[in-house]
């Protein structure tokens, strides 16, 4: 029963994080299009846009930040695995518990600070410095979501590691 609840929680987190990863991947072609359009507009039409510069940077930020949790799910983040690959599975779980805790600590600060910046951005109507001057608040909301998803994914992974340490059973078989 307990195992089933754990599995459900994990699968739910996995699903949500995967959607964020999907969203991030849809941004990529749009981002390329925006930059290419700016080149077209400037070179062919001789009228540079005022929005492509900031829009492309926003898309870049969304893409890069939101994909973080999904990359964790895929274990795609880079680590120095010289010792890591040599130790037993259980020791590796312990290692992960330590390093994921540090990561969560960092991400919690990111979420907290982004919330502060979001409030400030609303209070003072913060914008980008460009002529287009798009508002900034949504970037901080996105950072909170990106950080939150990342924390959820790491917490889910820690749960799975703990489960293995305690029961010697793998909670959820890796799909890929």
């Amino acid at each position, binding site marked *: 029963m307990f195992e089933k609840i754990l599995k459900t929680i994990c699968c739910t987190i996995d699903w949500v994080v995967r959607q964020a990863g*999907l969203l991030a991947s849809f941004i990529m072609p749009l981002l390329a299009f925006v930059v290419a359009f700016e080149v077209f507009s400037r070179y062919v039409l001789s009228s540079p846009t005022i929005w492509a510069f900031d829009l492309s940077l926003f898309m870049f930020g969304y893409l890069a930040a939101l*994909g973080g949790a999904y990359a964790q799910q895929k274990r795609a*983040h*880079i*680590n120095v*695995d010289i010792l890591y690959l040599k130790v037993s599975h259980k020791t590796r779980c312990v290692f992960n518990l330590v390093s994921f805790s*540090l990561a969560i600590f960092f991400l919690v600060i990111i979420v*907290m*600070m982004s919330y502060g910046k979001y409030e400030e951005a609303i209070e003072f109507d913060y914008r980008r410095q460009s002529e287009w001057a798009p508002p900034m608040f949504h970037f901080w909301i996105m950072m909170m979501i990106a950080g939150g998803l990342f924390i959820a994914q790491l917490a889910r992974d820690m749960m799975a590691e703990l489960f293995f340490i305690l029961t010697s059973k793998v909670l959820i078989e890796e799909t890929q």
Partner: protein
Amino acid sequence: MGIEILTVVLLLCILVFFALGAQVGLALGGIAMAVGYMTWGDGIFNVIPTTLEATYFSFILLAIPLYIYMGQLLTKSGIGDAMFNFSQMIIGRVRGSLAISVIGVCSMIGAMVGIIGAGIMTSGSIALRPMLERGYNKRLALGVIMAGGGLGILIPPSIPMIMFAASTQNSVGRMFLGAMVPALLTVVLMILYVVISCKLNPDRAPRDIDNKDIVKLEGRAKFKIARDGLFSILLIVAVLGSIISGIATPTESGAIGVVGALILAIMFKRFKLDMFLHSGFQTATLVSVAMWIIFGASVFSNFHLLMGVQSMVAGFTASLDLPPIMIIIMFQLIMLLLGFIIDEFIIVLMCAPLFTPIAVSLGYDPIWFGVLMIINILIAVQTPPYGFALFYLKGIAPAGIGMSEIYRSVTPFILLNLTVLILCMLFPDIVLWLPNLVMN
């Protein structure tokens, strides 16, 4: 806590968490914030928003997603492979020829991008799989990608060179010209290394004709490969052309490459929705991985800078009392050591204005010194434990390739870079001949 002790503490924390196999970016950020909280208080957390904005709103870094995406589209559509198949059709009988083609392609990519990350991840996206599929030795393949991708900052345009020139008030043009011969020398040495090492260990680079699994191509198939290969080379030439002819900036031309890759894929009926979605997915993951590292590392170095590491280096530099050439060598050593915990941009930012005036006052040419610095940071980003190029390479490498494998694969190529560094130090004309010829 003094800055010296703080630096040692930070280095120890890095070693511990890297040994535990922590994710590089999050570990660097986490260490900085934890140590920062203990030495500074919660005020240090305010470094996060400013660093977030500086990292994600950098138009220069935008080259990373655009070029990786171009690379992924070329690979996933099979057009990239066609380029190498085509080159193999012509020079496939030479052992190691594929690696040589890869070096050629990397040099062209190096002439498009100006930062390490874009160089390595684009070269890796396009050229790693063809080498591995043909049974090339993994280490040779990875090493070639690393060294080839590193050409991004050695072949103009190069962002670190522009930063160096601006912060020391030197000519960007001279700097670009000064790096040309050393870059060419690097490429030649790389090719020589590949040829010689393949002669000595023939199994490191199998030839297509010896491989029974590869079917001999006839007529139509041959034509198709030649056509696709030619067009993909043309695409790369077109992207380069768009930079040189002033249609787009180096960053923007990545987007031109994306559009071109899509058009080629559609033209040659290689466009599939699945391929398109998969390229986006793969790119998003690679970009996230790279950007979380860059962000975490920036938080780390910003904290370190706010605590005054630059004053420590300045103080140490001022206290050096050595013969001139020893000072130059000392500078190189300091930068190599800084490369253990600091990234390439920060090294240039910190060391260029500190070291260059001293080098000039000792009678050395600033362009020569600048090129030495660029080669030096090229080495620094490839040396463990903290080396961005290593992280990027691991990001692009197939699953199952560990960091120790990466370390071993890059070692011979780091030695090549070191050779070039020493040659340029001994014979300044390698650097100065071309700019003096063109600009005086």
